[in-house]
């Protein structure tokens, strides 16, 4: 996985970090937080640790990558996602579901309350429910 993207985003004049160091730092911030954090909050806390100023998009890139690796889970809070480390119990519950849903159709004996939503379905759902989207971010 190329790690030069965040380094480039960090702007000129900042020292290059070894690959993965930023990811480890972000994981550390999120573990210490004890609550889900938005990328903006992660950025603030990194800055408070006297690390170099990272751009917002750099932080988004890092947390997205960690989410893709299954190390972070995220939830929507208003307009942005908030991230937190995946805990062992959640991991166990979702592994159980995955084990019993192996092959999606053929082994599915579980009935989930809701199946996954596409972006389009989410829009439709908001229209149907007339949900006010102005939640605090």
């Amino acid at each position, binding site marked *: 996985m190329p790690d030069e993207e965040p380094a480039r985003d960090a702007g000129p004049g900042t020292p290059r970090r070894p690959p993965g160091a930023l990811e480890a730092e972000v994981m550390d911030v999120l573990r210490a937080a004890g609550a*889900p954090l938005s990328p903006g909050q992660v950025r603030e806390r990194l800055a408070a640790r006297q690390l170099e100023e990272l751009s917002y998009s750099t932080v988004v890139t890092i947390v997205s990558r960690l989410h893709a690796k299954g190390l972070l*889970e995220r*939830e*929507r809070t208003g*307009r*942005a*996602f908030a991230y*937190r480390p*995946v*805990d*062992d*119990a*959640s*991991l*166990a*519950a*979702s592994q*159980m*579901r995955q*084990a*019993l*849903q*192996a*092959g999606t*159709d*053929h*082994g*599915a*004996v*579980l*009935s*989930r*309350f*809701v*199946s*996954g*939503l*596409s*972006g*389009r*379905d*989410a*829009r*439709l*759902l*908001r*229209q*149907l*429910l*007339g*949900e*006010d*989207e102005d939640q605090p971010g």
Partner: protein
Amino acid sequence: MSALVYLPLLVPVLAAAAARPLAARLEPRLATWLLTATTVALAAFSTAALALMTASVLARSPLLAALGDYSQPVLRRGDPVPALAGMAAALLLTAAAVAVAVVIRARARALAESYRRAASMAPGGRVVVVPGHSIEAYALPGSPGRIVVSGRLLDVLNDRGRAALLAHEHAHLAGRHHLFTTVAHLAAAANPLLLPVARAVDYTVERWADERAAAITGDRRLVASTIGQVALLTAPRPARPRATLAITGARARSVSLAWAGPVPRRVAALLAPPPRRQLTLLAIVAILILTAGASAAEAARDLHALLEFAQTAR
């Protein structure tokens, strides 16, 4: 054997086209029974048709003709099934047998695993709360079956939302909904043209549980909003269309659900008035099934008569 033998192979195409509209209009419990029965009947008839085609071509082989002591030329003249079609039928029949075996194995394993896990959970409680931050809720078939919910999801919902969620999952267990979906998918393994019908059964059992939850909580809108709330917790970030605020029940009809996934369709169904029994639709499905069954039976009778004729002509 007449060309009627092809009809049971074509009726599943009609059933597949009709499955989604039927699932949307029929009362969900009735729809589940009807669509599951449809998959079983049509899979049985189409398999029988394939078997008949295979048999009619096999019967023309010199070896079997000698064993059965009947006239090969009479068979050839009397039977419209071309040899190539017969061989294709034999291949399809083999493929269906393998596919059914594969699905039986996968489902049996998943079910055994589900029972094992349900039994390993603490005795007494129907509802098992898993700690953690994930948004999970599912019914685990077993003896007794369990409802697995994440603590975080329970925290997010209020009392009435929890009641709706638990009533929905409990309806799955009480109605043994996994058996309907398993049977439907087994039938679809035998005839893949029936896959849309089996998927419609997956949908109607959800609707069945939704309507049970609505009956128990006495509030269709509550169940709709709970489904929406839980689904949106894990949804991708919205594109913020400012124009679409505050659309309620009355305007919900104007939202196009033609290509929508199951969740918006379930919510729309709950916001609409409760479904009623639709006798016309029932009659149409009954006619479809009867047509397939009658043509398979007629084709079997034809083949039998032809074989007898070929024996006397000898």
